[in-house]
């Protein structure tokens, strides 16, 4: 076993990305993503990789598109504000099948719609993993590089300031997720007219001498691929839900806090559990329906105005059991969570919503 190392989330993610073979990174500073860009800029050159401080997020994501199309394991990131600028390129990558990892080291949980619905064009989705802590972010980072290449698509890690900055003793160990398909699509530098050139093209029209499937067939195939991913890649954690009357649904760091409160309330004799979507897209619809079958109350806790709430309402066993106990809570700097992300306030909200079932 490798030794424990005390690393902040950004550095741990960087080490995990290098372990997964990432050798190209581009980004533009924006707190708390800046820590990731700094760590990448230190470590990439040491591993014969390249880290570019781009002049904007739009430039960074398009650098990644190019590097990935040429066969590099490539990644970019920002916080939600910068990833908003990247939406066109993310949609292009999804539709022209370029694998890449996008790290949203977000300032809060207000980017749920952004990562699960996206703001680009076309029938695409972005597979998104939301780790609860740094050790899980290390696992997820390696898994994401594998998933990106397995399905040839951009994927997202949804982090936050606590994940970015908390220093935790972790082990960075290579993970084998299984074989990957041949990389016969990678551009190799052959140019047009040689007969050997390849295309990575959203419209898939092909060349005059070698017509592609064209947009209709290509985009239907893309849609089928996303349906396949939606069925195959749902991930979730059910914590103390088996006999729970009240199930709280939360993701990422917020779920870590809810799990702590669940333990406290269980010690008081309350039958409370946590359901945690690990993939935000695909939303773990099958597992949520199963976990909530006998619950009388399903409480959604997220640090936004109610975004995952839509998905919970869509897939929960009984929509009438759903109530929202989260809310917008932002630190006065605008760069971090506000006071709602704390065991006490979460406990109070669960208790007051559970009145009558105790």
């Amino acid at each position: 076993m490798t030794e424990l190392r005390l690393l902040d989330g950004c550095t741990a993610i960087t080490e995990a990305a290098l372990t997964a073979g990432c050798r190209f990174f581009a980004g533009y500073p924006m707190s708390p993503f800046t820590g990731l860009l700094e760590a990448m800029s230190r470590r990439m050159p040491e591993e014969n990789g390249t880290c570019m401080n781009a002049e904007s997020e739009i430039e960074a994501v398009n650098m990644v598109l190019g590097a990935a199309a040429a066969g590099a394991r490539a990644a970019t990131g920002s916080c939600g504000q910068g990833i908003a600028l990247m939406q066109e390129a993310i949609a292009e990558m999804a539709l022209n099948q370029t694998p890449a990892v996008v790290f949203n080291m977000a300032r809060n949980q207000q980017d749920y719609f952004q990562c699960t619905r996206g703001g680009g064009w076309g029938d695409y989705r972005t597979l998104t993993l939301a780790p609860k802590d740094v050790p899980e972010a290390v696992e997820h980072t390696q898994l994401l590089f594998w998933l990106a290449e397995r399905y040839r698509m951009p994927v997202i890690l949804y982090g936050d300031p606590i994940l970015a900055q908390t220093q935790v003793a972790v082990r960075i160990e290579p993970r084998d997720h299984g074989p990957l398909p041949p990389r016969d699509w990678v551009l190799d530098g052959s140019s047009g007219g040689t007969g050997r050139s390849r295309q990575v093209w959203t419209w898939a029209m092909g060349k005059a001498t070698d017509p592609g499937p064209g947009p209709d067939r290509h985009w239907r195939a893309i849609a089928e691929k996303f349906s396949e991913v939606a069925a195959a890649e749902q991930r979730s954690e059910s914590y103390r839900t088996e006999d729970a009357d009240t199930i709280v649904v939360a993701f990422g760091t917020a779920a870590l806090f809810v799990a702590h409160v669940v333990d406290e309330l269980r010690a008081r004799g309350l039958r409370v559990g946590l359901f945690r979507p690990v993939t935000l897209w695909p939303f773990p619809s099958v597992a949520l329906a199963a976990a909530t079958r006998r619950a009388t109350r399903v409480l959604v806790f997220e640090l936004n105005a109610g975004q995952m709430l839509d998905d919970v309402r869509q897939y929960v066993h009984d929509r009438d059991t759903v109530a929202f106990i989260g809310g917008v809570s932002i630190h006065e700097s605008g760069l971090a969570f506000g006071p709602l992300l704390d065991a006490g306030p979460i406990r109070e909200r669960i208790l007051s919503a559970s009145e009558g079932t105790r």
Partner: protein
Amino acid sequence: MGILEREVILCGIGGQGIQLIGKALALAATKAGRYAMLAADYGGEMRGGPSQASVVIGDAPLRSLPILASSAAAVLMHHKFSAFARERLRPDGLLLLNTSIVTDTVAGETAHQGRVVGLPVTAMARELGAPQSAGFIMLGAYAGLTGVVTAAGLETAMRSLLPPYRAQHGDANARAIAAGLAEVSSL
């Protein structure tokens, strides 16, 4: 659950070395093969702003929250910005006070049911000829009272954290750790 995790909230003002002693503690534990977490929180100012470090050490992957719900110990290097540490300290917890500075009698330490240890570490550090090392005296005392890390482990971690242009403070910091440990050895 059932697995011991030991938390401490270190708090003071920017310039007192809170972040350095927090990192030294977490790193010493990690180097000893234990699980550690360091959640830092500080203002943008170089001096005088809030500075806090929560450190958790355990023998298995940690379950404690990065914003501690409660803490086994609190170290107050300054009374300013100490409300969080005071509120989260468990009733039976260990309260360490820098009595050179923390002289207010806010309900908390006078009413605190657990153990209270006061050390004038700012004055002690001045006597050692290394006023910047007050935090390490306190850290040595914390290590002595809890046994959570060794003085040798702290010293190694501290030296590895000093940038080259601060390396000359390594010996004084090491003496400070030893002084803190000695101060509580008879308690």
